[in-house]
């Protein structure tokens, strides 16, 4: 970890990677938080779009 933090470019790359991980985690948490009915409605809306 300290190898990454010693390099500014590597720190920025790691920040972007962490952002991508956060976006994926956000999607997963939102999917888990949806109730069965909400998920069904959301799936239908996605299909309609």
């Amino acid at each position, binding site marked *: 970890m*300290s190898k*990454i*933090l*010693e390099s*500014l470019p590597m*720190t*920025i790359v*790691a*920040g*972007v990677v*962490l*952002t991508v991980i*956060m*976006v994926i*985690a*956000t999607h997963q*948490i*939102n999917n888990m*938080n949806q109730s069965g009915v909400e998920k069904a409605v959301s799936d239908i809306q996605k299909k309609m779009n």
Partner: protein
Amino acid sequence: MEDIIFFLVRYLHVLCGVMWIGILWYFNFVQIPSMSKIPAEQKPAISKVIAPEALFWFRWGAAGTVLFGLILAHMSGYDREALTLQQPEIGFGMWLGLIMAFNVWFVIWPAQKIALGMVEADAEAKPKAGRRAMLFSRANTLMSIPMLFSMLSAQHLAGY
């Protein structure tokens, strides 16, 4: 009236945030990479004058950002949902901001006081403290990228 207070709190949150992250990026993008290029006799200008002044606004900017951010979240009614990640879009950003502010006050500032000679410490402790402050400052720079993404996307990229 409530709208004006709400706006003022958001405005102060952003002002303090710009102060905090602006100085964090100044340290990491400008000061730290430039130190090796500065002649030895000129280095005290950084370590004795500029860095202590920057650290003052840096740590109080962090405190103000967190204070007004928490008030804003409470006024908006999403503080509990965000911190328990039931609203992860803003929740991740809040947690990253809190971890970063903790680093500022309880790791970077105490280490910088030793590194800059603002408190009594033996000669061996100074370079160790300087390295600790630099690494945690870099860790905050790393976390600032997803933190700012979270803060902005929660407001301006709904349902990403």
